[in-house]
């Protein structure tokens, strides 16, 4: 098999005195889509934030390789430029900065990092139109401030739109499905499926099997109290849906 895009080894992270990640191991290979499930507070968002480089979390142990490079050494913007993308569970509003300006700045930073010329205004507009169509984002959103006054669902769709624009190597989706109505869920899922490619990997954090009906994962993990306690094929999600987390967490307790 090819080299993994993401290799996490024995990752420990804490906030203050509280250890939240307690030895996470995970390999994600090109073309794969991994789902991460687990009860509230188990550390899913923390894992995403640590990978993206949020400073609030202190990594106390372990290693993360991103395309073979030491991810934990990089600044958040370097990670992004190297191709790591996080669709936030709670996207923020950026007052006064239009979606177009924001994305143009971001995309050109990425292009600069890759040694490419910045896109000119025309090329950029065309790209925006094309990618917006993927998640049915109305072009009137381009001139609106990033996420400002967007509905919950619009914010989530905007995250996937940004993903489509920035074409990352690894996309982490933190509960992108929550807060979406059924139609929007379908739109987001279609968007993600269209963006799957042999050179790209996805880490999809979700609470609901429903999403995984549309976006079929290669692997499903259960994160519990800062550890991946179970890994299985896509059917695992169905089983969790039917039996709840207790079914796995109890066996975990025994195993510990």
């Amino acid at each position: 098999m090819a080299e993994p895009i993401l290799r996490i080894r024995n990752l420990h992270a804490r906030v203050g005195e509280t250890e939240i990640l307690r030895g996470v191991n995970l390999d994600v290979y090109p073309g794969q889509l991994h789902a991460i499930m687990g009860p509230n507070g188990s550390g899913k968002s923390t894992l995403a934030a640590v990978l993206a480089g949020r400073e609030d979390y202190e990594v106390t142990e372990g290693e993360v390789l991103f395309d073979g490079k030491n991810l934990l050494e990089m600044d958040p913007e370097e990670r992004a430029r190297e191709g790591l993308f996080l669709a936030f569970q709670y996207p923020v509003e950026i007052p006064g900065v239009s979606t177009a300006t924001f994305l143009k700045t971001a995309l050109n930073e990425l292009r600069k990092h890759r040694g490419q010329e910045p896109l000119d205004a025309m090329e950029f507009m065309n790209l925006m139109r094309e990618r917006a169509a993927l998640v049915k984002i109305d072009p009137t959103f381009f001139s609106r401030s990033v996420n400002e006054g967007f509905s919950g669902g619009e914010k989530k769709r905007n995250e996937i739109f940004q993903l489509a624009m920035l074409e990352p190597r690894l996309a982490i989706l933190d509960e992108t499905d929550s807060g979406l109505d059924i139609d929007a869920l379908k739109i987001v899922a279609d968007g993600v499926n269209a963006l799957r490619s042999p050179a790209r990997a996805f880490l999809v954090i979700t609470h609901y099997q429903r999403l995984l009906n549309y976006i079929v994962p290669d692997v499903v993990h259960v994160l519990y109290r800062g550890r991946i306690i179970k890994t299985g094929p896509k059917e695992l999600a169905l089983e969790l849906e039917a039996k709840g987390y207790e079914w796995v967490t109890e066996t975990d307790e025994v195993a510990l």
Partner: protein
Amino acid sequence: MSEHVDILDQLTASDYEYKYGFESQIEEEVVPPGLNEETIRLISEKKGEPEWMLQWRLQAFRYWQTMKEPHWANVRYTPIDYQAISYYAAPKRKTQPRSLDEVDPELRRTFEKLGIPLHEQEVLAGVAVDAVLDSVSVATTFREKLQSLGIIFCSMSEAIREYPDLVRKYLGSVVPPNDNFFAALNSAVFSDGSFCYVPPGVRCPIELSTYFRINARNTGQFERTLIIADEGAYVSYLEGCTAPMRDENQLHAAVVELVALAGAEIKYSTVQNWYPGDREGRGGIYNFVTKRGICLGESSKISWTQVETGSAITWKYPSVILKGDNSVGEFYSVAVTNHRQQADTGTKMTHIGRNTRSRIVSKGISAGYSQNSYRGLVRVNPSADGARNFSQCDSLLIGDKCGAHTFPYIEVHNPTAIVEHEATTSKIGEDILFYCNQRGIDTETAVALIINGYAREVLSKLPMEFAVEAQKLLAISLEGSVG
């Protein structure tokens, strides 16, 4: 020696200062500190002023002696010892840097970030390059063109000598010498400034601009500017400032008066970037300025636009008296404070004429440990039927150690008036910055992006070249404010 005398004479007897623009070309010879009638007589004499001007100054000085320094602004500073300030500086040649390599690298870095062309950098830094002197002052370059249109644009000293009737008629007509403590001080000791008169029906074809700089240490700077747009005339005036590093506080108390006659329009734009002091607030400039315009005639318009990033302390309220019916007053402001800077700025719109309209857009940006206050007064007099005002006061906070304050005062004495006030406060927090970082945008760029968006409405009112410079300036002044 004879060269020194020569130059001194030139300065005092002509518009030398304005032709050559920059005092940093010359080292200053400073009159001993202190302020009394003798000092004022000395200033007036050195400048070769007529008797009426001397009397005007002395009258102002007597007012000043009876006045107290105002302390209502939301700023704190160690008391100013007015007797420790030197009120007159005469220039003499000094040893100048021979090339930019000899110039303070910090200053050069700022120039480069601002994108100031190399030859202008040399002038600003006081490099001895005679060939470029003329390019500094738009006044010189375009003087002939302006003259052919009947526009007068010269130094205040020259105007006092050459156009005494205009000066006597309008000087102090908007900001009377006894208006306030700092205005009285300025009236008594003002050093120089700009004078502009645009005759009836003439549209000034270029943006008039001047750069002010503060030079010798401990020399209070007292600029005096008077702009008159006669009936149906139009003029746009730019005032821009850069100042070199200083370790001592310097007082700057300028007065700007604008007069718009019937149907005239004056646009006055400022980018103020005086030395704000170091991170601890040491050594910055005190900027206590009185700026006021009067829409004297019907359907006249005065518009103030300011981008304030500098000074340790700013105390400034560009105002408009809306006397003529249907006249319009505007105030667009971006005020940035960082580190220990303090700004108390805003405007005063006084509606006297019927159907007068005013619009206030104030954008405060505070970072570091700074304090940024908006203070505005909208007054509608009983005579102002149908007056309208709209005010928008926004504050943006970067970090959580700084403060933003809004003090809107509204006095309405006419029931037909409509006065609207809107205010918002937003914050650039860690969350927003991390979000930007996660998209590959570094923190500095992110802050620049956000503040430019935030200040867009005001920046768009500036003349094009100025807007670009101002945009960069905003980013520079907020450097190191986060992360």
